[in-house]
């Protein structure tokens, strides 16, 4: 698809979709949504970009090096957040038990480790979807 109208409309809408995905990931503890939903929205913004502008443009925006990096270290980040509990002498992935301040409910920093863990999950989900899409589209060519 190399339509002029489609390209201009996508260039207007896609940045907002991307920022909205980041918003949903970060506000997982306060509002409906969460890291899985937000990660899919972020991944979808890249997938839509690649379908409209072509797979080469998409891979130029998100090189394979970045994808390999996020694929590999998303779960490791999750595990590192779990190690906070082990360092304080309480079980793995403990949150309030590990002495992390839960904060004021309703603010962005509430939930202790939950926003940080959610960031890792969101990055993992987004990179998984983009990697699956790129791999299958490359095979299609």
């Amino acid at each position: 698809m190399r339509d002029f109208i489609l390209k201009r409309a996508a260039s207007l809408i896609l940045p907002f979709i991307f920022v909205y995905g980041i918003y949903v990931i970060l506000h997982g503890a306060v509002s409906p949504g969460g890291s899985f939903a937000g990660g899919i929205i972020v991944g979808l913004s890249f997938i839509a970009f690649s379908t409209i502008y072509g797979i080469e443009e998409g891979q130029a925006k998100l090189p394979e090096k970045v994808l390999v990096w996020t694929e590999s270290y998303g779960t490791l980040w999750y595990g590192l957040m779990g190690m906070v509990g082990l360092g304080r002498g309480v079980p793995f992935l403990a949150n309030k038990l590990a002495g992390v301040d839960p904060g004021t409910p309703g603010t962005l920093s509430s939930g202790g480790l939950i926003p940080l863990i959610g960031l890792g999950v969101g990055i993992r989900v987004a990179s998984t979807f983009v990697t699956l899409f790129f791999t299958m589209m490359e095979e299609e060519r």
Partner: protein
Amino acid sequence: MRVIKNLLLILLALLVAYAVIMTVAELPPYGQPDNPVHNQVAKRYIDEALEETGALNMVTSIVLDYRAYDTMFETIVLFTATLAVVITLKTGKGEGRRK
């Protein structure tokens, strides 16, 4: 010989169906407040999730705090799915990819 085998298979199927139907008949009625599924776990989440995790969204507090192990291995499932697709589709190395 074949008829006997088929009759035995039908008998086996009927036995399994009988066992399954009797199990379903033993289930507690749907949606009653004193069912065994409504135990202290759900009550604990509803009453104390906000206080114990500080997250307003109770689903997130369960998924990323109480059941954090589960979510961690869900991300590993995603990793395995990607790995399987990449191994299956990206054969060969670099530019020498299979055409």
